[in-house]
Every structure is written in structure tokens, then in C-alpha cells.
């Protein structure tokens, strides 16, 4: 049998998928054990026990200064910034992307402008945002918006503009006005694409969030990682990074499920 025809079934696919993760985990454990064998106070590759010990304080004990449990306060702050940023991105993408996609005149007027904004590296704008919005929450959310929204807008506008011309003509022969065309033909077909775009944007959005938190913040997952870096606290950094990836995966799955439930018609070819 040719290699291209070897297709794992569902169960073996799950098994195969977990295999690299397990291998990485075991490799880490061995490396950590080896380092600790030569130097019992090694900080670079902490053992799982050391991580549990370090995280216990952050997970269960309130910080004497602020009265908050640091780990959960960090998570809440980061998620709030991320969700706020992505929410604003989704709304603006929907508004601007739809207008650009549906109206050729709007596309001719603003298409090049959006493209120009989209090619500016968002991190390069971070100082501008800090100067303009101060060091508070606004600048962090704004970085996510500036980083992600242009991509979503362009993606959505392209998708809407690429809807088969036949559909638009058909809708008009059925009496649809521009508004009705946008509302009933373009919008429902744009929504699953928006969710797909959001899923792809989760990675960049986390990058922008953590960059902003690393530079100027007093709370947040990214802030904590960059804070404890000064003490070489890998026993806190590693669990935090693992937690961030878990959160990212959970958000991705939630968006996928939302799309499947709400827009079943868009996923029928994939079953």
C-alpha cells in the first residue's frame, strides 16, 4: 500500500496525535532528572514537584499586598483584555468588512487604506499606543485590535466579494435591495468565515497581548512570566505557558463548536 493511502481511523488518529505530546513530556522529564542529578538546585529545567510547589502559592493563597489570588487574577485580567480586543475586532470586521465586500465603491475607496494599515507591524505601533492611550488597559486592547482587525476585515471583505455573482444577481431578481442583499445574502455567509478568521487570529492576538503585558502592566499572564524571569523561575514560567496554550486551545474549540452549531450548513461538506 502506498503511504499516501494510509489513513488512520478516528481512534488511532487520537492515539497518534497524543504520541508527540507524550514523547515531549517524557523527554522533558528525563532531561530534568539528568540536570538535577548533577546539580540538585538546578533552576532551568524544574521537576514537576518543584512546579507544583511553586504554583501552589499562586493558585491558592491570596497575595498579601493586593488580597487577590495571583494566578486567577492574572488569568482574568488577560482573558478580559483578549476577549475585549477580539470582540472589538469581530465587530469592526463585520461592519467594515461587510461594507467593503458588498459595495464596490466602498472597496475602491477604502480597500487600499485597509491594506496599508494591515502591513504595518502592530508591535511597531505599540509605543505610539502607549503614548496615545497611556499605560492602562486601553493601549493593550488597542494593540490587539490594531494587530488583528485589519486581517479580519480584509479576509471578510474578500470572502464577501468572492460570493458567486450568480447569487447576487438572483437575489436582485427576487427583489432584494442593497440592504436586504447585505443582510440576508452576504451577512449569513460571512459569519462562519468570521469565526474561522477569529480562530486563526487567536495566536497573533495572544502574541500582542503578552507583548503589551510584558512591557507595561501590573497584572496578567504575560506580565507574570516576564516578572518571574528575573528570578529564573522556570517553575512558574512553564506552568503559565502551559496554561496559556490550554486557554488558547479551549477558545479555539469553543469557536469551532459555535460555528458548527450555529452554521451547520457551512460544515456539511466536511463531515
Amino acid at each position, binding site marked *: 500500500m502506498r503511504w499516501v493511502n494510509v489513513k488512520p481511523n478516528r481512534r488511532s488518529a487520537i492515539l497518534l496525535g497524543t504520541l508527540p505530546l507524550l514523547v515531549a513530556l517524557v523527554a522533558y522529564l528525563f532531561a530534568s532528572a539528568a540536570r538535577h542529578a548533577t546539580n540538585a538546585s538546578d533552576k532551568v529545567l524544574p521537576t514537576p514537584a518543584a512546579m507544583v510547589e511553586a504554583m501552589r502559592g499562586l493558585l491558592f493563597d491570596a497575595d498579601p499586598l493586593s488580597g487577590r489570588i495571583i494566578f486567577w487574577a492574572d488569568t482574568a485580567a488577560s482573558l478580559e483584555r483578549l476577549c475585549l480586543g477580539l470582540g472589538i475586532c469581530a465587530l469592526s470586521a463585520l461592519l467594515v468588512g461587510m461594507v467593503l465586500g458588498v459595495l464596490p465603491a466602498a472597496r475602491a475607496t477604502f480597500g487600499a487604506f485597509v491594506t496599508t494599515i494591515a502591513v504595518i507591524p502592530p508591535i511597531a505601533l505599540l509605543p505610539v499606543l502607549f503614548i496615545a492611550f497611556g499605560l492602562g488597559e486601553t493601549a493593550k486592547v488597542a494593540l490587539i485590535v490594531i494587530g488583528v482587525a485589519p486581517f479580519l476585515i480584509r479576509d471578510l471583505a474578500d470572502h464577501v466579494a468572492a460570493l*458567486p455573482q*450568480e*447569487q447576487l*444577481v*438572483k*437575489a*436582485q*431578481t*427576487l*427583489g*432584494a*435591495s442593497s*440592504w*436586504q442583499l447585505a*443582510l*440576508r*445574502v452576504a451577512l*449569513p*455567509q460571512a459569519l462562519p468565515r468570521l469565526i474561522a478568521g477569529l480562530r486563526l487570529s487567536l495566536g497573533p492576538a495572544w502574541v500582542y497581548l503578552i507583548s503589551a503585558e510584558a512591557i507595561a502592566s501590573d497584572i496578567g499572564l504575560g506580565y507574570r512570566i516576564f516578572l518571574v524571569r528575573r528570578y529564573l523561575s522556570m517553575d512558574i514560567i512553564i506552568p503559565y505557558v502551559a496554561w496559556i496554550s490550554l486557554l488558547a486551545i479551549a477558545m479555539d474549540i469553543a469557536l469551532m463548536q459555535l460555528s458548527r452549531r450555529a*452554521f*451547520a*450548513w*457551512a460544515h*456539511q*461538506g466536511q463531515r
Partner: protein
Amino acid sequence: MSDLLAFDNVWLEYGDKIVLERVNLSIAEHCFVSIVGPSGAGKSSFLRLALGQESPSRGQILLDGKILTPECGPDRGVVFQRYSVFPHLNALRNVMFARECVKAPFTARLFGAARRRAAEEAEAMLIEVGLGDSLHLYPSQLSGGMQQRLAIAQALIARPRVLLLDEPFGALDPGIRQDMHRLILRLWEEHGLTVLMVTHDIIEAFKLGTRVLAFDKRRIDPHAPHRFGATAVYDLPLTNKLPLDTPDVSVSIITIDRISNNEEG
């Protein structure tokens, strides 16, 4: 029978390329016009003109004696070969779309009794085209033939003055195509439709049409082939129709005499 659609010396040009030239036609109400011709002979351009998707460079098109605005409107229904149903709506909602657009300008959605009435109307239409069992299926769950039935039902519910068909059965299996021929003829008679159908299948054209238009270029300049446009070189009223169960014979037995066709029109 009065003229429903009239083409008065219509030209269609893109830059210096002439697609259609000197198209003079009048189409009576309750006609079934088949349009045939080789690729690039402007069949689809002709249909787009009738649809209002494009405007003529010269001449004018009259619908019910009024000059046609170059924009698609609900007085003309259309069925394309593909993509003419909405993938995000089930069959019933696809057919209700026209009603919802007319009656709810802002929300484009109906509620309560108005919605029930529109749904009943749409259901009756779907039963008429043979989709009574598939009301709640999405287009991706329908076969090609069923999708075309849906597209026809969707167009007919808006009660268009003219129904324009752009190779509507071109992508279907021969057996399904026969069924669709029966369906479209029945609907044509029952609803008193006026139909313009572009097809590349000559048998289909003669079988369904009451009038066959053959589009081609009258003259060809070998050095500048784009400088002469196509027009209706043959305009055949059909009185003795081919029977509906005509087998799909080979097209090669139909010969078109190009020589006798050079007189000025």
C-alpha cells in the same frame, strides 16, 4: 399576443471588441425562446442584457414598452447553471426569500401570520416542482437536479414577466435532464411564462422552444476577428415540435448552412 421584450438595434461593445451587433428582436408574451450558438457568440451576453446585468452600448431594450433600466429587477427571474440558490438557507427559506424581500424592506424577515402565509405559498411552489419532501434540506444536501428545481421554484414565486435560463440543465445527467424538460414545459404552460433559455444542446433547444434563435457572427474579418459582433443569424419559429421523449440523438446530424447566411439583415 403583444411584444413583451423588444431589442431595438442593440449593440454590445467592450472597448473595440464588438460582442453583439444590430440585434433586432421582438419577443411575444408566452414564447419559449431557445438561444443556441457556438461559444463566444454572445449568447450569455444577450441574456445578461435581458437581465439588466449589462447595458447596451447602442440601441435600447424595451420590456412592456418601457426602456429597461440596466439593473436586475423582480420583473425578470433567472436560473443559472450553478450557484443560483442560497447555500445558507433551506429549501423553504430559499423560496420564501422573494416574499420576505418584498414585504419586509428593513428586516427582510417575516413574522407571525405573514410568515405562515409566505411559508404556505413557498411550500405549494416546492410541491409543484417536486420538492415537497425536501422542504427543510439545505442546498448542499440536494442533488444537482433538485437544486435546479429549487432555483426554478425560487424564481417563479416572484412571478417574473420573463424567466431567463442560462444553461439551466447543462450540468445534469441525461435522465434527470428529461425530467427537468417535462417540468419546465409544464410550468411554462401552467404559469403562462415567457422563457428565454440559453443552451448548448441543440436537441434541447428544439424540443423545448417555440422559437429558436441561433447566435453567430455574420461576417468574420480574419485580421481583426473582434471587430464584427454576433447577432441572431437564424430565427426559427417552431410549429411542429419535437416530441418530448426524443432521444438524445447526435448533434452531428443537424447541419447549419453557413453559405446561405451572408445576406445583410
